[in-house]
């Protein structure tokens, strides 16, 4: 059963919780208490998978021996997002690996557009081959997924999302599961993305 460790990144919004107490070590959790003094553990972290963009024509079971950082962005693992999404600042570094898909024109003639993170961007759909690794060099075999590739925002508009988003319906998650393991002594949880086979 292959697996990769998913990076856990504390979100700085946690620092804005006034009623909370930071841990001495860092900021992974805040512990607000109720009137009885009961401590509530309030996690404020995100999960980032280190995806690896492979050549479309690569053998489906091939494993890379070199992973250029240009081709291995950290993607927020967001099971609430149906589609995977790459901002232009990221996908322009691996353009040659994208197979663009034809999209029917909208009836109003406007480009296809998506609104996320308080901004609105035009996008193109494309197909890309993604595997996953972690900082120990583990590997999950790749799968081909359709993704939204956001265009740059027009001048003066909201800035692009900073991270890629790995959505629920990427085949990279097919027959795989996301599992939280034991917490480490410093309270950081360990998360795994792993094959769902014995």
């Amino acid at each position, binding site marked *: *059963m*292959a*697996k990769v460790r998913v*990076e*856990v*990144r*504390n*979100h*700085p*919004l946690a*620092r*804005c919780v006034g009623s909370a107490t930071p841990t001495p*070590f*860092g*900021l*992974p959790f805040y512990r607000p208490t109720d009137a009885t003094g009961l401590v509530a553990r309030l996690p404020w972290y*995100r999960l980032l998978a*280190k995806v690896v963009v492979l050549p479309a024509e690569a053998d489906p079971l091939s*494993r*890379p*021996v*070199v*992973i*250029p*950082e*240009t*081709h291995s962005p*950290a993607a*927020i693992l*967001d099971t*609430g*997002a*149906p*589609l995977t*999404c790459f901002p232009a*600042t*990221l996908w*322009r*570094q691996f353009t040659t690996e994208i197979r663009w898909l034809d999209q029917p024109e909208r009836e109003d003639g406007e480009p296809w557009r*998506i609104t*996320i*993170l*308080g901004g609105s961007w035009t996008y193109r759909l494309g197909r890309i081959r993604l595997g996953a*690794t*972690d*900082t*120990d*060099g*583990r*590997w*999950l*075999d790749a799968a081909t997924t359709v993704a*939204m590739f956001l265009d740059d925002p027009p001048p003066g508009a909201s800035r692009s*999302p*900073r*991270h890629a*988003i790995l*959505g629920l319906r990427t085949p990279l998650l097919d027959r795989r599961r996301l599992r939280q393991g034991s917490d480490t002594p410093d309270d*950081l949880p360990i998360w795994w993305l792993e094959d769902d086979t014995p």
Partner: protein
Amino acid sequence: MTTNGTHPPPLPTDDVFLDLNDEGKAALADCAWVGEQYNRGDWAAHAGAYIAVVRRQVVGVGNDPAELRERAARECGVPPGRVVVSYIDSPEDLEPARL
């Protein structure tokens, strides 16, 4: 630890590990280091920007990750693919919205 003072062998796993070259391993080590420092809050001064890291050193900060990567690679004399570029979230950054 066993009674004779040695550590037991690690449990067998089915993990699949890549056979990366030294450069690839070094880049992953830098990624791990960036994550550790991030969760300690060490990058707070760079919130809202990207940092470029090579060999456990921040070698650049900027708003355009591609430009930052090229610049850092040039200054450090390494391939662009060796430079770890990571965005440092700021409190103003929202959680990912649903598509």
